[in-house]
């Protein structure tokens, strides 16, 4: 049997139906989420296919092993987009344990979701009313005694002539960028990393925007590294592992899936993503 058989292996999974090589293509083109792919089901399909043959083809098995391990690696990476560096600090055994723990956690949640789906369909013939009954008593709202001066005050507010038109309010007042530069530097002198969102979440939006500019400034000068699990996820700020002015190697920012390319390209993409996050969340 030619090795091509492996790639032609017909799969019938929840997320995908078709030959194995099409599945791989879709994964590489990022048109299919690796986490959606049931690797165990592929293995079983392969074993079943092999069982139908009379002889054991080592070449086919070898190719299958290579492809399936690549797939497993893709899947594992997809589960840890933001914490690759954290994992790298672990001992290999610890990392393996952590990986297994998270895979198990996600698998259990998928199973729980499947249970919910099943439950929904078994309960689809249970009908109940949402909201009040047609002839339910109208709840009476009682208002405490009020001061009539409040009414006079409200009307005075409405009758107050508007201020002469001034464009003064158009100029937003915001703190200088330098204030945040110092604040973040001093934070990083005490801690190795912090969450941008947690740090500035309580500030007004304008100040958050200035804080972001300060962050970009620090990133540009190579003082910090930024990572983000996904668009809109919290931005994690950590001290640059090399305090030289040069930006760190691209791999360390694998959290932002940037195309491999020149440093400037990656950096521009980083900023773009972060700006997009701010603009959408604002």
């Amino acid at each position: 049997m030619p090795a091509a058989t492996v790639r032609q292996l017909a799969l019938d999974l929840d997320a995908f139906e078709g030959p194995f090589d099409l599945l791989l293509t879709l994964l590489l083109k990022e048109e299919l989420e690796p986490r959606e792919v049931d690797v165990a089901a592929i293995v079983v399909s392969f074993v079943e296919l092999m069982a139908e043959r009379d002889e054991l083809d080592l070449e086919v098995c070898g190719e299958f092993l290579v492809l399936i391990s690549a797939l497993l690696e893709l899947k594992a990476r997809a589960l840890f987009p933001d914490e690759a560096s954290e994992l790298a600090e672990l001992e290999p055994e610890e990392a393996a344990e952590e990986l297994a723990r998270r895979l198990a956690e996600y698998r259990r949640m998928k199973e729980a979701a499947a249970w919910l789906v099943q439950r929904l369909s078994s309960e689809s013939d249970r009908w109940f009313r949402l909201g009040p009954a047609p002839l339910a008593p109208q709840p009476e709202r009682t208002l405490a005694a009020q001061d009539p001066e409040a009414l006079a005050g409200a009307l005075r507010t409405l009758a107050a002539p508007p201020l002469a038109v001034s464009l003064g309010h158009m100029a937003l007042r915001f703190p200088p960028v330098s204030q945040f530069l110092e604040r973040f530097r001093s934070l990083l002198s005490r801690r190795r990393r912090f969450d941008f969102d947690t740090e500035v979440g309580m500030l007004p939006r304008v100040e958050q925007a200035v804080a972001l500019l300060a962050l970009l400034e620090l990133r540009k000068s190579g003082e910090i590294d930024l990572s983000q699990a996904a668009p809109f996820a919290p931005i994690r700020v950590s001290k640059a592992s090399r305090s030289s002015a040069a930006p760190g190697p691209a791999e360390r920012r694998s959290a932002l899936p940037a195309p491999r390319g020149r440093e400037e390209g990656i950096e521009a993409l980083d900023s773009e993503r972060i700006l997009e996050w701010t603009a959408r969340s604002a």
Partner: protein
Amino acid sequence: MDSPLRLIAANPVDHVARTVESLLVVASAPLSVHELADAANDDPERIETALGLLRERYSEGRCGIVLEQVAGGFAFRASREAAEACARLFERPVERGLSQAALETLAIVAYVGPCSRPEVARIRGVAADSAVASLVERGLITEAGREGGLGGAVRYRTTPLFERVFGLESLASLPRLDDLGASPEELRDRLLEVAEARAS
């Protein structure tokens, strides 16, 4: 115990009646015979027969659930003997104050006199629909005819409850705002003028 049940279940009217019970217990508005017939996929006549059966079963004094015929059709309600218990179930805590939107709207209606939602909206510079609705629901304002007769916008005025809540003997005892206008008409003009200036 089983045999009488079987006898009843064998009767198709009882099956229709059970379906009608189901429909009435999930409905959020009264259901007409036709709506019941459509949903149950049955004849209106059989629905009426079933309703007759249910009216007996769910009647005052016999059951805590009472089948009532109202304008829109049929609906279940609580029996009168449980009125107090139901009132306790729906009791709401005393509210301390009004929202700014409600307070402004109420002030306009109280000082300017009967006015419509569009008018309130013009003075406040924002839509007044939900503020008006909540004041009506609380019984602080009520409908008072229409602007320019039939077809005009509904006007609202304050209620006796409003006077009680604000500790007023009558509208005449509202705090005076002479500096803003001597009469309700002057006040209204002043407010509209300011609103226009604000909008421009």
